């Protein structure tokens, strides 16, 4: 008798998908950024999207623990490092799609089709406009030079954005060279590393430090709130490798119950009509080259990307973390 409610519950869960097609998403991107998209998708296609948000690490553990019985069809997360890990741990399934191949440039997706970037976030140099001329700036590497002694601010090395940046530097420059640059950064610090990009940018604005590295959308937010702050944006490494870019992206889960629906949602997200909705919410750049960024974002100017495949950053993440530990970058 005790099992009756259980069975009823089981029967109900089993019956639910029969009513309407549904895609279930585990998302490390927050609700405010994804819900408007899913609502638009449902309106257009009639396919319901059910989602739960959380931190990347626990979401992946959850997928792993649920195994073949997971309700999730799609994983949405930020940073290629996390997507690369999800693929390595066997949580994703490769998909082939001409639409995705056309909409997502090659350096912003997994070569094997396990995951696809959906928006671009650029990590570049910011400076105090009262104290620094743009002509003084050139590259991430240059921030290690002694002329920036006591003038540099950084976010903590514990954030994956910095780990990915250093990862791509290892690809370009090798471990030894990169380590000496990171040591140079640490020597130049004007204050302890900050726990988030926004506080770091505000410290530049207040004059505690003259230069720093941050993601562009944080800059957008800070300036939107206080447009008078003397902070300028500088596209790093334009004479050399290009500015470091990363993605937020999606992949179909290995045990997806509705793989077709998930693929359809992915294709839709990369389409011209969805890309602005996806990227503009957070002042990021669309991945789809046919789509123009938001006016606020476009105002920062065009820049050359670092075309190293973002998957590389994931591969080298652990190496980068250890390198930064050795260099004393906290």
């Amino acid at each position, binding site marked *: 008798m005790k099992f009756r409610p259980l069975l009823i519950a*089981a029967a109900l869960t089993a019956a639910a998908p029969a009513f309407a097609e549904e895609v279930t998403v585990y998302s490390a991107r927050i609700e405010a950024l994804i819900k408007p998209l899913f609502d638009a998708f449902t309106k257009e296609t009639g396919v319901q999207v059910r989602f739960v948000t959380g931190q990347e*690490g626990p979401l992946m553990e959850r997928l792993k623990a649920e195994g073949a019985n997971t309700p999730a069809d799609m994983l949405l997360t930020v940073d290629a490092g996390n997507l690369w890990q999800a693929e390595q741990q066997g949580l994703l399934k490769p998909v082939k799609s001409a639409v995705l191949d056309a909409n997502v440039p090659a350096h912003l997706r997994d070569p094997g089709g396990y995951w696809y970037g959906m928006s671009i976030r650029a990590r570049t140099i910011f400076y105090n406009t009262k104290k620094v001329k743009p002509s003084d700036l050139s590259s991430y590497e240059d921030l290690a030079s002694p002329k920036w002694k006591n003038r540099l601010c950084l976010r903590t090395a514990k954030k994956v954005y910095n780990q990915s940046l250093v990862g791509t530097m290892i690809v370009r420059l090798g471990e030894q060279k990169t380590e000496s640059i990171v040591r140079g950064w640490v020597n130049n610090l004007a204050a302890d590393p900050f726990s988030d990009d926004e506080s770091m940018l505000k*410290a530049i604005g207040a004059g505690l430090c003259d230069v720093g590295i941050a993601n562009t959308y944080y800059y957008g937010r800070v300036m939107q709130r206080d447009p008078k702050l003397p902070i300028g944006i500088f596209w790093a490494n334009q004479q050399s490798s290009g500015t470091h870019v990363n993605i937020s992206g999606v992949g179909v889960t290995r045990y997806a119950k509705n793989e077709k629906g998930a693929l359809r949602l992915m294709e839709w997200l990369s389409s011209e009509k969805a890309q602005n909705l996806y990227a503009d919410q957070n002042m990021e750049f669309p991945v789809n080259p046919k789509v123009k960024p938001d006016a606020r974002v476009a105002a920062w100017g065009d820049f050359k990307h670092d075309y190293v495949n973002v998957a590389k950053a994931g591969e080298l*993440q652990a190496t980068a973390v250890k390198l930064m530990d050795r260099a004393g970058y906290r």
Partner: protein
Amino acid sequence: MDLPIETASRSLPLAAKVKRRWLDERLLAWLISLITLLPLAVVVASLLKPQGEVWSHLGEFVLPQLLANTFWLVLGVGVGSLLLGVSLAWLTAVYDFPWRKHLAWALALPLAMPGYVLAFVQIGLYDYAGPLQGLLREYMEDTRWMPSIRSRWGVILTLTLALYPYVYLLARNAFLTQGRRALEVAASLGLSRRQGFWRVALPMARPWIIGGLTLALMECLADFGTVATFNYDTFTTAIYKAWFALFNLNAASQLASLLVFAVLVLVLLEQKVRGDRRYTSAGRAGAARPERLPGWRGWAAVAYCLLVLGIAFLVPMVQLLRWAASVAAEQLDLRYFGFVGRSLLLAAGSAVGVVVLALVLAYAVRRRHDLSSRLAARLATLGYAVPGTVLAVGIFLPISWLENGLINSIKALGLGQPTQILQGTLVVMLLAFAARFLAVAYEPTQAAMERITQSQEEAAASMGLGRRAVLRRIHLPLLRGGLLTAALMVFVDVMKEMPITLMTRPFGWDTLSVRVFEMTSEGQWEIAALPSVAIVLAGLIPVILLARETEKQS
């Protein structure tokens, strides 16, 4: 004069009378402790798979600094919350001064403020780019000479302000229940109130104070959000680094296991030192009549209370309210009824459930008073010393095994094609909260148990009352204050809890703390202020209720 009385034997005559049943207290205690032991076992099992490479890296470059940082943090927060908690509790319990009654409950309010929120507010207010230093710079060249809040003393201060209420609430409970006679006898022997404090009240309050301190330090050791906001690296930093940066959950679990063992050893040592002393109330129940603090001394007491309350709660609250007001127009919508409702429901449900479990546990320890039950109780309360996210995985794994087993057998029997059974329910969440917060309910409950005298139980038993009747008619009324404190603390902690809520909530079960996570994960602290304020306001309800109850009692 050492009031805690040493006794040779505590075996209750009552126990002998009752026939042994298969479900005796000891077994019950072990069953309850399973809720925590299963997830802990998952965490500790990681020790079976050595992760040499990660360890040698952490050992060489990371751990030495972290261990030193952790040591100073624990020491600072321990001393700080003892000083604040005990002094405030003593002041509001035995002295009378203006606004005492209101200050007494208001001083518990910082409990409702999540540590990581307080951290962000403090940094936002006092750091170089903040309004205070900005104002100073209008009058002087630079403020770089000022000590940075983002430093060791800043973290210690912030965590102390966030955690002292545990010590405060429990110590106050002790001072209010130690019995009228204790201090009166001390006074008749020529001790002043201050001497009475050191020689009578403090030794008699030991289980409470240690209980509060244990909670504060466990939370301090398991904390990640607050220290991360300060970028102050502690032992938990290494745990999260191993997991999130080096993608080695196994090494992370190993580090967490060490943390748990360290806490277990400390707790058992303390019990050993405490030995068989007893802490029953002296004379009739209730507190000694508060002594009026005349003139400036009364106002000094008010100033002290207000200072702590101001830094820990009022100023941060004003800042939060300002932020919340600035985003309320676009953020506050009808969905907030849902967030608040679900938070309250979960918090209230867990508070009741966890307190009942803690009561059974404390009762079992009292009745059996053997090593086995005590160990069961101590193990059951270790969930609080594990970083939340690690425990969340520990909880999720056994549930998933069970879930997958159920689903697969239902499929094999041809009864349907379910995808979720347990995981779609609140049962999982409530069990997980029990594993996390048993300590929070257990400490005040077992401390309150100490006040009940053996003769009270014996008298009840001699009148022919059974075990359950004794528990209901003797223990429950006498434990009232302790149980209410326990329920309040669990309630507020569940409202603030993040990692377990995130991982185990059913679809659509977003709560206030999920809202806070959503905003803070993107660094949008201004927007996060809105759900944070809601958490604090909802936490106010039980704090005020508790305050009224304790006043009634005394």
